[in-house]
């Protein structure tokens, strides 16, 4: 099943909380650094946001709320992505619009 990609979701999240998914270059350092071993966070999740894949983001509700916001991933990120801020923004979106 192919997903038609569009900018609406990323634009919405950028307006809400300065979501900066675009800066992510998909290296995976964040995943390696996560003390919970959450393999979804954040690179694939951010791609879903970038491409407006609403359903795929909603399906990760558990993951998004499992995050400890410890910032270990941000310490490791070579691209300086504000990962925990993005997670907070995503939580807000999921609470208000995501269900």
């Amino acid at each position, binding site marked *: 099943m192919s*997903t*038609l*990609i569009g*900018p609406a979701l990323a634009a919405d999240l950028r307006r809400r909380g300065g979501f900066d998914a675009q*800066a992510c270059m998909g290296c995976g350092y964040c995943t390696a650094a996560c003390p919970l071993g959450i393999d979804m966070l954040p690179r694939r999740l951010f*791609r879903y946001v970038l491409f407006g894949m609403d359903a795929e983001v909603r399906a990760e509700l558990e993951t998004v709320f499992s995050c400890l916001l410890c910032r270990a991933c941000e310490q490791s990120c070579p691209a300086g992505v504000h990962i925990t801020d993005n997670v907070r923004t995503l939580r807000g979106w999921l609470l208000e619009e995501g269900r």
Partner: protein
Amino acid sequence: MSATRSPEGSGTNEPRLAVYVCQCGGNIGDYIDTQHVIDVVRDLPGVQVARDAMFTCSDSNQQEMIDDIARESLDGFVVACCSPKLHTFTFRGVAERAGVNPYRVTQVNLREQCSWTHTDDPAGATRKAIRLVTAGVARACHGTALEPVQVSTTPCVAVIGGGVAGMRAAIGLADVGLDVCLVELEAELGGWTGRFGELFPRGVSGRALVRRMRQEIASRPGIEVLTGARVVGKSGTYGNYRVTIAIGDATTERTVGQIVVATGFDAYEPVAGEFGYGSPGVVTLPEFRRLLDETDGPIVHDGRTVRSIAYIYCVGSRTDGHAYCSRYCCSAAAQASLLVADRDPDLQQYHLYRDLRTYGRNEVLFGESRRRGSYYLRFADDDPPQVSVDGEGVSITVHDLLTAGAELTVAADLLVLVTGMVPRPEDDLIAALKLPVGRDGFLNEIHPKLRPVETVVDGVLIAGACQAPKTVAESVASGMAAAAQAAAVLKRGVASLDPQVAIVHDAACDGCGECVAACPFGAIALAGSDGHAVATISASGCKGCGACTPVCPIGAIDLQGYTDEQVRAMIVGLLDGGVR
């Protein structure tokens, strides 16, 4: 001009020689008993010193050779080791440092032609080695000192192709005081760069760059510009070539010392249907650049304002038939997306790539493009995007490796195929100059690292994207490199050529002309006075191939370094070595 011949050691006086037999580590020593070879050849006429060595080419052994030459007052030496292709110049260098004429060095190939071919028979290999070294000593006994052939050169360079590489080469050559004949096929100078607007890096327009270079060329009287012109022929010899140039129906000739080929590239033209090419809304990168360069404001294509653009990278590069990377296209597409973002920040841009090679400083373009909103999606080599075109626009389906291989569909108003460079079909020029062409169709240099602008054709240099895909900056750099190489030869005014060329013994020659017909380089002519025409060989035209010597019915031609006397002595040596 002809090579001179020194009388010393010319066969009548027995020369004083050393013989070195190399073990080449185990390459020779594991199969040939080098000590036995030395013991046998030690007593040959002329041999004053004979020894073997683990590596004769090593620095320490070279110094021992130099010491032997001084202590024993040697005239030359025989070194039995690898192929002359590998170490001729190494051992000629040893001779020069020891004050001995470098053409008094005889190299015997014991590795490729003996030990490597007879690994199953060490005793037989050793017997063959004795024959080969005996023949080498015999040849050396009849060797003579030779001096390089000196030819005066014409201080003018033909530059073929008036794009950035050729223009920059012409300017550089004029600035060191050489005349230039710049031959351009089109009606005006500039090539590809002259058609483009802003180029990476730094965003200066190609048109402005070319305008400035045209002015620089116009201000240099030493540069003659021929437009609408093509080179159709070349004759003459090293340092003094006659090039024939066709302009319309007329032809003209120029005498030049060197030739720089800078004929550039063609843009890859996709076949109909390749990623939707030929359908409305699908364009190549050069076509898209023309659209950007010739319009202002919002991007409009086919009368419609473009709201989204997709780029597919590596079209016509890194594929069957075009195995190479075209180098410039990743950076050019990233830069085009920035030009688009300047004009319409809300326009959506999707880049579908295989691998991004925005190398060096161009990485900044990629980062900036992402920061300004371009999306980058990566597809697998064996899973290219599928394109379908309908009235509404272009729909591209891709498995994005950066989104766990998810199948995504991009709907775009315009699809840009990021096409690479292909070689120009310059068959006539390639035939006229005998240019070496690589497997990919681009012209070949001698050595990609150390001799990047020289070709195997003496006096013919290459520059710019006729050699391989290059950016503007890289083309200009290679144009300047070619100018420096041409100037390095021509500013001396004379060129030194290999003296191992054919000579005619005038008194013996009866002017039959057999050799004239045999010479593949057209270097022999019949000339003379008093009704006695003899063959005359141009020392600069002769390549020392030896085709003329065996056809002479009366043996009046000798190839210096391989004279009949030397070859006869070698044959005797080969036979003689068998009974030792």
